């Protein structure tokens, strides 16, 4: 029962920020995005993309720690949500923030290091989303896992992008960085243990 409900529940939870944005944008159910709605949309989509990425990276450690495969299952969906929110973040920026002015877009991308970092992260997510189907997994075989290691630099770039654009208080980006360090540290630890075990064997 729990396992059957897990995926739909996560789907709903992951869609919630988007639903709230939508309600806020059109004033549905008393929701509002405040006096500067586009800024709010940028903030929510960006933060949610990062959150989804971090949760995606929690799947493997959770499986290891609990010994339960079920935590592995929603990983693809969460990864795709992360991509969707990151793409939405970019689209809000290009279409609503910059009014789809390509001169402005080119100017900003070339001049602002934090935007370049964000763009690279988004571009690096495209092959991951494109190869997320069962068919692609089978076709790529071993190379699939190698390719999907890209998620680590993507997370790093995403946090860097966030860190670089805050005005004064870097507490939140640093918390993300700490969480990422923990998640990567867990993997490094596991790897070195495995190597040691292999040596002994």
């Amino acid at each position, binding site marked *: 029962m729990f396992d059957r409900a897990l995926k739909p529940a996560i789907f709903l939870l992951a869609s919630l920020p988007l639903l709230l944005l939508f309600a806020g944008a059109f004033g549905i159910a008393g929701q509002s*995005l*405040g*006096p*500067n*709605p*586009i800024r709010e949309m940028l903030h929510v989509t960006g933060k949610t993309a990062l959150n989804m990425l971090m949760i995606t990276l929690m799947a493997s450690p959770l499986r290891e720690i609990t010994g339960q495969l079920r935590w592995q299952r929603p990983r693809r969906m969460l990864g795709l949500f992360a991509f969707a929110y990151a793409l939405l973040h970019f689209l809000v920026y290009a279409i609503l923030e910059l009014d789809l002015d390509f001169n*402005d877009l080119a100017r900003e991308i070339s*001049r602002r290091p934090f935007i370049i970092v964000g763009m690279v992260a988004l571009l690096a997510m495209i092959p991951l989303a494109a190869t997320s189907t069962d068919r692609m997994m089978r076709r790529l075989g071993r190379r699939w896992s190698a390719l999907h290691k890209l998620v680590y630099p993507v997370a790093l770039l995403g946090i860097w992008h966030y860190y670089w654009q805050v*005005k004064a*208080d870097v507490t939140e980006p640093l918390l993300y960085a700490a969480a990422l360090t923990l998640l990567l540290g867990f993997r490094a630890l596991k790897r070195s243990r495995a190597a040691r075990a292999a040596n002994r064997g």
Partner: protein
Amino acid sequence: MKRYSDPSILPSAITPEHEYFDRRRLLAALAASAAMISGSVGSGIAATPAPPSYTRNTKFSTREAPNSWEDITTYNNFYEFGLDKSDPYERAQEFRSRPWTVEIAGEAELRGKFTLEDILKPHALEERIYRFRCVEAWSRIVPWLGFPLADLLARFKPTSKAKFVEFTTLLDPKQMPGQRSGVLDWPYREALRMDEAMHPLTLMVVGLYGKWLPNQSGAPLRLIVPWKYGFKGIKSIVKIRFTERQPATSWNIAAPDEYGFYANVNPAVDHPRWSQAKERRIGGNFLTSRIDTLPFNGYANEVAALYRGMDLRRYY
């Protein structure tokens, strides 16, 4: 000085006067009903004297339609109360903005501590509708209530050594939770060159929309310099000091390559992380486009002469 004329007015952009008054009547009715429900809690101007009386200064006012009271008082950068734009509105309601004293110090013949009432007494209040441009590339139109800073400063007879004037915000971490974190070097400080301070557009503000300032907007006394980025408009002022040397200012200390001492609105000089060429007028919906930012926020005719011969890329 020359009569101020707004360069950006389209007839279609002018709000008919009756709408403007209707809006205020509606707001007043809302405020009254809210007050009946909740007492004075949440008004942010509790324990203040009778409503201010004032005249309209149309000469110095833009004819663009002002933003709503809500747009002006629920979306604020006032880091003393938190970093989110809604924090000041949510956390400043209990702030005690009266009784209040202001210290006058430095290069002036008259110095000392004055009650707010003493500070305000000789000055006739006027309403001026100014453009407000935040360094974060958003803007709004605000009907401020205040009087020229020049009139206040003159009362204390600054000496010939007074080349700058420095302002300090209250330091009170108990009332201002944002001051418990080290985002900025508290208390907040700002400063103007003497000629900027004495310019007739520079306003000591005590109210908006015909009412005393709500706490989140910098009660009871704040500065507005309409041709500069909003962060120059220091709030909840407790000290004014005349100095011979250029004082250090809070945002300039925090990030000198991003926030200059002058901070004049300038579409040609980008913030390192974003363009200042355009701005978003808040209060619209998600389809509202940006508009061009004007040099000196549209007040170039009045103030550009103050900076003649200066390299504005260097003195940003």
